[in-house]
């Protein structure tokens, strides 16, 4: 499955996708987790969150978890979503590996 055309992800999207990947979660939980995980660096509001979630759902990266009610829907990751997440993390790791020596040299030199 070629997922590279979805990359790169916006940092906010990456964070949201990563948290959903850890297990089904509803909107409120997502906002709190993103806030904690990013040390309050990424703050979400409901309208924007659901806009992102809707897009992910349309892309079929996530689906509505079976146990959710209409109001308190939980979202779970799909295999496509997991593949996108993995590809993005891989891309970032490679990028880091490529960029790090520059800083190391800067420090010694």
């Amino acid at each position, binding site marked *: 499955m070629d997922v590279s055309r979805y990359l790169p992800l916006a940092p906010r999207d990456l964070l949201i996708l990563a948290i959903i990947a850890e297990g089904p979660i509803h*909107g409120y939980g997502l906002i709190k987790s993103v806030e904690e995980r990013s040390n309050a660096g990424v703050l979400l509001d*409901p309208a924007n969150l659901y806009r992102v979630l809707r897009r992910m759902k349309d892309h079929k990266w996530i689906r509505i978890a079976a146990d959710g009610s209409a109001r308190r829907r939980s979202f779970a990751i799909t295999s496509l979503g997991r593949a996108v997440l993995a590809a993005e993390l891989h891309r970032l790791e490679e990028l880091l590996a490529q960029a790090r020596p520059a800083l190391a040299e800067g420090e010694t030199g």
Partner: protein
Amino acid sequence: MSPRRPWVVRAYARALLILPRRVRRQDAAAMAETFDDLWAEGKGTRRLGHAARAFGRLPLVAVAEWLDALGITGGTAALDASGSKGGRSMGWGTHVRFALRSLGKAPGFALTTVLLVGLGVGAVTTIFTLVDHVLLRQLPYPDADRLVLLENGSHSGVIWEEFNQMSSVDLWAASSSRSANLVGEGNPIRIIETVVSEDFFRMFDARPAMGRLLVRDDFRAADNVLLSHAMWRRVFGGAQDIVGRTIRVDGEALTVVGVLSGDFVSPEGLVNSGEAADVWRPIDWSDEGYARPGRRVLRVAGRLAPGVTLETAAAETEQVNRRMAERYPDNYVDRQGNMDTTPPAFLQEVTTRRVRPGLNLLLGAVVLLLVVACLNIAHLFLARGLGRTREMAVRRALGANTVGLVNQLLVESVILGVAGGVLGVGLASLGVRTFLSLNPSALPWAGDVTVDLRVLAFAAAVSVLTALAFGLLPALRSVGRDLTEELRGANRSASTGRRTFRLRSSLVIAEVATSLVLVTQAGLLLKSFINVNTLDPGFGVEGVWTLPLTPNGLEGPEYVEAMDRIRASLAAVPGVTTATYGLSQPFEFTGGGRCCWSRGTILADGVERQDLRIFLQPVSQDYLSTLEIPLVAGTAWPPGESRQEPWPVVLAERLALELFGSAPRAVGQVLEVGPDTRVRVTGVAGDIRYYGLDQELPASIYVPIERVPFDIDMAHFAVRVAEEPPSGLASSLREAVWAASPGLPVPTVRNMVEWVGMSTAGRRFDSVLFATFGVLALLLASAGLYGTLLYSVGEQRQELGIRLALGAGRTRVQRRVVGRGLGLAVVGAVLGLGGTWLVGRYLESRLYGMLPTDPATLGSAVVVLLAAAALASWMPARRASRTDPLQTLKAE
């Protein structure tokens, strides 16, 4: 929605209604729930932070969602699982094709809309182009925003030296213009000679087209000359070997060192566009006149040093003024003890001050016209939209989605907007050219005005916005109606009809109100023009021809002798009854300029009058009789007595009344009109409107021109012609001048009627322009009213049919419809009168002998408007009364 939720959450849930329906259906409940949780869990500032974020970001999200929903941005809807564009939305190419096809089916609608957009955009763009060039754009000089002009006229060489010591200004330029006579190139030609200081061309970034500019060495010899590009083309036919040639100006032989580049823009305020310099020469600083504090001939501009404010420079110039006042109290302090000031003002600001209100007024007027055009566009789209609701409903039923339909309406609007914009730009470039060729108010800086990219961008923005705001929005009403309702024919249901009628009525009211403002403005200006034109100039205008001459280099008696020779020669021309000359003639200085002498003081029998501004008019023999200025008392001085002491003079009646209470009492009085100048009144002449029909009567004293104590380079002749002017009069007058004084240019021979006409040309132009706007607005408003009533009559066909069937008279039905139309017009007129009152003060300075609230004008404007409204209502009313009851009922 749970009633137990806190009000903040309820408010948020309600705020979510601004999202598109599809988004709301999917997620609004979950969003509200999430917000509820956040609110319930948080405390204090955290909770407020969440709430602020949720509310604060909602509008942005909503905009993004709507853009998606309308298909303007990629959005989520357009992406299917595979990420490619789905079959649900069409490409833009298809939209354009569809839109063109659909507009092609309604050519009347399309054409009218394009014309309306074109008209509005054309008018606004024309005026905007001028405003942009004259008021907004930076002057075409380096560091233009630091260039200042020293106000209060011309300055002496003495103060110029002082200015040059100032630290807040790092570059100075001075110039002085006069008319001169060029001989030896065919007929003698009158030219404008401008002398400039060393840094003048540097400050204004001039480049030579040939040869070189003036350099410092030229200032030692001062007999080198630079030609303007226009002069080089006009007089020397663009000769390539011009550099090094010798030309003769006022008897001096000058060497041409270069030709100025054609794109050089003369700095307004130093060199006026009305009298663009033909030759440029270095200032001859060795001329001792520049050492006299009383000889003020230099226009002075400076460049502020970097970082210096205007205030700082103003403070420093004031110090200079103070020093001058101490050193030369005779020249730099007036009789009231006030020190002369020369405050600096930004060059662009000071040179456009005169035309700024006029341009802004015009801009206001064309914006109003655009508003009326826009409202009419809204009418058209509304009417078309109503016709299309069914089409839209059917297309939706056949599978077209809302996004697609909206997109298509969008494309239609934009196409009409763009077409209208193209037309508008075409009209604007035509309009700008026409405007400039008339150039009624001598716009400064308008030499090379063209419709350029900047203006095109402006026009494009106006036209597309117009089409979107007034085309798309009404059109959107046709989308999103329920299909079943449409197919049931519910678009003709009473409630929808009433809503639409109300909307269209408000449009009509707005149109009528706006047009009334334009119509009253036109009326006020027209009436002022008529007021001015019915004024009596005070002398016999018909049959007078004038020849302004510039005899240079003649000293006192020499001048009088030469001019008297010309006068005799002119008087001998067949058909001429009398000839005369003076320093100037009436109606030559009808702008801001005032020729020639003005002294603030007069002493009459020891009584000092300081409040009078007196105009000394040096004139020759037969002046009063040639112009047919009536003598009210006494006589004009006889030819032999002009040399007597005190000078024999004739007072204008106004001055005689002011000083002595009556004209006869003034005769024989002796007064002092300046240092060592005592005059004896031999007669009192009727007042004449010397400086223009709409100008104040000047307090004139006619004095013998032979007594004027210094050399003059002006002699403006007037001749009176008996009855029909003989053919070829102008050339025989020219020949007569040359017979007496070969080599003297005669630039114009003009009838006095023409001069008088020129003095009101600005008013005529204003009236014509505003009358055009007013009539257009009136037509558009009437069309709007007509369309609205026609629509409402159509709506009520059934009702009218029943009424007619039940025996209501046709007149009654007609009266009802006309009454409705007039009702709208009256509401609009009342609002319009309010608007007129609001804009009145901008017009005040252009009115003559009336207030902007002139009841007669306002009343007539309202009557004209209501008459137009009545006519526009009567036509649909006639149609209503002709409704065939049977047919109407059958149709249902």
